[in-house]
């Protein structure tokens, strides 16, 4: 009469094993694609974008060619289009520092009390997981004259420009 019960106990053990195994497999495979890993990648990419803007800004110009301020000062202020950017020097330096990534560069500045934003380098339209890094530079009459840029700044004026770098991977 109790013969069946032994089989059922074994069945129960088997089921227990099955469920535990499933839980183990699910949690372990889930760690590969958990949101935190994706977040870590975002942190990584954003950190890299900020690193690049920082070192372009702090490096003396004999190190890498023109630094960020000189590049921005030499901007012709034309709106960029795809494959036709208006900041070739910065583009050349960024392409060396960001191999395998796509990036856009925008400039924001204040003119007559209002904010103006223009594209300077346009390589495409960023995907959803693009990251943005910003850095401000200061232009004066003398930096612009030296870099032969198109900014019109009087000798007693200064112009703050925010450089926005958008980076994404395809």
């Amino acid at each position, binding site marked *: 009469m109790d013969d069946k019960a032994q089989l059922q106990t074994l069945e*129960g053990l088997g089921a227990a094993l099955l469920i535990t195994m499933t839980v183990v497999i699910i949690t372990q495979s889930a760690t590969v694609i958990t949101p935190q890993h994706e977040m870590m990648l975002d942190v990584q990419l954003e950190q*890299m974008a900020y*690193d690049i803007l920082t070192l372009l800004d*702090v490096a003396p110009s*004999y190190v*890498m060619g023109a630094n960020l301020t000189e*590049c921005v000062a030499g901007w012709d202020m034309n709106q960029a289009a795809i494959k036709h950017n208006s900041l070739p020097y910065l583009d050349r330096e960024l392409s060396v520092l960001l191999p395998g990534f796509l990036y856009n560069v925008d400039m924001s500045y204040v003119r007559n009390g209002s904010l103006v934003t223009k594209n300077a380098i346009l390589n495409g339209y960023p995907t959803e997981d693009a990251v943005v890094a910003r850095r401000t530079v200061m232009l004066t009459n003398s930096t612009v004259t030296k870099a032969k840029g198109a900014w019109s700044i009087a000798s007693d004026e200064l112009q703050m420009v925010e450089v926005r770098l958008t980076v994404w991977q395809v």
Partner: protein
Amino acid sequence: MDFLLGVSLVLIAIGFTVQFVPGIFISGSAGEEKLGYAAYRTSCILTEDPGWWSNSTSSGTDWEKHTENVQRIGLAADDDINSRLTETPNMLSKEKLIKFKQLAETEVVRKLGLFDSVKGTQMNYGYNISFLRNDQPLVIDNYIMVRGKPLHPDQNMAKITRVVLLETGNFSVFDGRSLTTDYVNSSHANINFAGPAIENLTIQITNFNAGSDAMLINASINGSTLSSSDYTILRRQLYGNFSSYASSSPLLDNDSLRIDFNKNLFSSNKSYQIRLNFHNVTFTQQGPLFSSYEDNVEKIYEHALLVVEVW
């Protein structure tokens, strides 16, 4: 009743797994997070901080000169040792890098916080900190710039990559308009150097007063013309990158030239005069009292990747 027994067995088994296999829930959250933080923190402190040392009487960011009293290890170059911060994050000093490579293992683990305390005992993380250029570790003064152990394949680890500028040596930077010439020919640029040289001599010149079809013809030391294998010339056009300069190719006002001389040319303990022989470039400052290599020495920085892996 058998069924109840089965169900309770299942629950007990699951409870057991959760309790005794820490890999399931812990590593999915806290453990891995800790690794991520450790990697991020380590990369930040190395690239953005100049470090700190102190003893009972004084302190400063120049810990590379006081390695026995290091408080914090940071690699960023700093020109004001009392500032506590650096104005130049992401630019790493060569001297600090080499001292970092020489520090004792326990010191590095403790100062960078690369360990975790489990019930009061210290558990060191495995780590690997490397400075890479073109996926190869950099070599500075015969030190391979890698610290830590190689990574096991398919190990669970946290990794962060930073873009940095590394100081790799010295060079002398001149403005072409203030270089000295001699009475023989105004297209000669003369630079003095007091030997012996301990590293290759690199001279960078920008801003030439160049006429049409200006060019650099050759270089000589103390009057004897060098063969082209004794030095290499790189040229950078305005805002470009350095690339090799073929002898006697045209030179523009805004170009930069970087000339690298082998250190063996300056091996004796005497003074040398390097003469660069240009064509159609005018130098206005007439010597004697020639430009000196030592007066204009700056640091060369090259961009590289700092990779921190923690497991």
